[in-house]
């Protein structure tokens, strides 16, 4: 039993990372109907920025602590937001009315660019993410261990999700975002500045990915330029699982993804870990393409 509990904790902690990345995917898909292939690589940039800034701050302030963590998170999220803005303006905006395959290929191109330029700039070797806060056991119930950092990540994911949902549901900005995801043309007709809203959404999604990068650096402190590929894909599956475009769905999808991966690896076989995500995806797309919380959209003729 304690093994099962431990695996569940592992799954929830790991799933929180997927959830954060999935939130970004779902938001961007909501307004742009685009799978931002480069999202996983923005997560990687967040982690790398966190690495450099973290080391700098620790050296400068001779120590670690919550303030340092907050500082690193802030810088990472801002950098990623800026990066997201640049990517959206230069690469996705010109293709807004082009066939979807073009935008998808551009996204793939950006992803590859970030990965290989990352290898060139940061070096291909894996780097050890600095300990920004001290880890330690939070709870030890009969052998089942929950670590401080695992718990913090889980909390932050939920907090960010709630914050995001608040913005989307209760603010004017959020209303504008929802309008844009409903119809570009209609929202323009009622005076919503389309470009600005899209850019802002993109920036928010990217900032979340950046935060995920820093947090994963805390709990699994190895970062390298190709680290975003698999998590990016799996987070996409998580977003689809929860219903793409749906914010709580992304959280639930991420957690489910983390849990199922952990259970499969722990109880069945670790060899099929990566394949599981795709099997899940195909399964969901066949059974309920709208995902757990999504609404089925029928194609109007």
């Amino acid at each position: 039993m304690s093994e099962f509990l431990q695996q569940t904790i592992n799954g929830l902690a790991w799933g929180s990372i997927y959830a954060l990345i999935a939130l970004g995917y779902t938001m961007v898909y909501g307004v742009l109907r685009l799978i931002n292939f480069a999202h996983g690589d923005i997560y990687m940039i967040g982690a790398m920025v966190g690495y450099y800034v973290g080391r700098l701050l620790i050296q400068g302030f001779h120590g670690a602590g919550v303030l340092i963590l907050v500082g690193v998170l802030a810088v990472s999220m801002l950098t990623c937001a800026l990066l997201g803005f640049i990517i959206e303006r230069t690469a996705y905006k010109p293709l807004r009315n082009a066939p979807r395959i073009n935008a998808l290929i551009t996204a793939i191109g950006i992803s590859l660019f970030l990965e290989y330029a990352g290898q060139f700039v940061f070096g291909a070797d894996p780097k050890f993410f600095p300990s920004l806060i001290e880890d330690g056991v939070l709870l030890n119930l009969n052998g089942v261990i929950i670590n401080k950092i695992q718990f913090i990540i889980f909390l932050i994911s939920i907090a960010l999700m709630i914050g995001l949902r608040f913005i989307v549901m209760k603010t004017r900005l959020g209303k504008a975002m929802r309008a844009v995801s409903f119809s570009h043309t209609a929202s323009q007709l009622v005076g919503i500045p389309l470009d600005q809203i899209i850019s802002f959404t993109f920036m928010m999604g990217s900032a979340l990915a950046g935060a995920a990068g820093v947090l994963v650096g805390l709990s699994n402190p190895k970062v390298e330029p190709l680290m975003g590929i698999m998590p990016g894909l799996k987070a996409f599956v998580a977003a689809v699982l929860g219903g793409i475009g749906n914010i709580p769905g992304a959280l639930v999808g991420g957690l489910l993804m983390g849990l199922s991966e952990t259970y499969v690896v722990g109880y069945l076989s670790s060899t099929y870990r990566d394949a599981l995500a795709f099997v899940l995806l195909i399964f969901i797309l066949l059974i309920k393409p709208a995902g757990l919380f999504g609404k089925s959209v029928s194609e109007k003729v």
Partner: protein
Amino acid sequence: MILINPYILQIINLIGINAIMAVSLNLITGHTGQFSLGHAGFMALGAYASAAFTVYLHEPIHQLFPSLAPVYWDSFFFMTSLAFGGLVAAFAGVLVGVPTLRLRGDYLAIATLGLGEIIRVVVLNLDFVGGARGFTDIPEYSNFFWIYGLLIVVVICMARMVYSLKGKAFLAVREDEVAAQSVGIHTTQYKIIAFVVGSFWAGVGGGLFAHLNTYLHTNSFGFLKSVEFVVMVVLGGMGSITGALSAAALLTILPELLRIASEWRMIFYALLLIVMMIVWPQGLFGKRELKWRFKKLK
């Protein structure tokens, strides 16, 4: 052929194989508009199936039919091996085609990507085809004549399929599926045909690849490889067979030319993708073909 530098010959052969892959993907993605990011997976299936056929069934067939003339062994055996590879890949094409009928562009892309990964993981765990060690000692049956001979067959097959009256249906599916259905085209059927035929030839391409390099490893058939094929189709112009051929040649030679700047190679490649999509999305040939008994499409 002995007179040509083997390195150059290798590149020429690789161009041929990539061309087969590009033209077969062109049917699925370019003509029929089904965005597949898993083409390398079909190639892998064909490669491993064909290699396994050659390596494991060589002896049994020899035992069963001891009186087969050398002529058989020289040509027909290889052909059967390639056909086997193609059929395995085509079978997978059916399995993929049927369930993914309802998926829209982006979802189909990810689903096919996932399929490619699943295939790789499965093969990695099959020890009789080498697993993580790789499949070694495949006899070197491929050569210039086999590769380019089959390439010509593929091109003719594709051209006849698509540029016939019935073939317009593929294009109709690409342009507007709902409209196509409303004029009575069985879009389902055509999508499956596209996947099956496309995967068959991808499998043949894989078999040729296996018997050229004499060694197979799943790392050669990852997502990146599928992306390379997609780039070839798009760069050449979606739906243009000539385009696919030219782009395959270009994108096989380019990395060799850029060997000097090998660290920059992938970065340049990625930038090329991005810039091309924004500035020049119709690709080299757009929807046109070289006139050669084909009707020019507008």
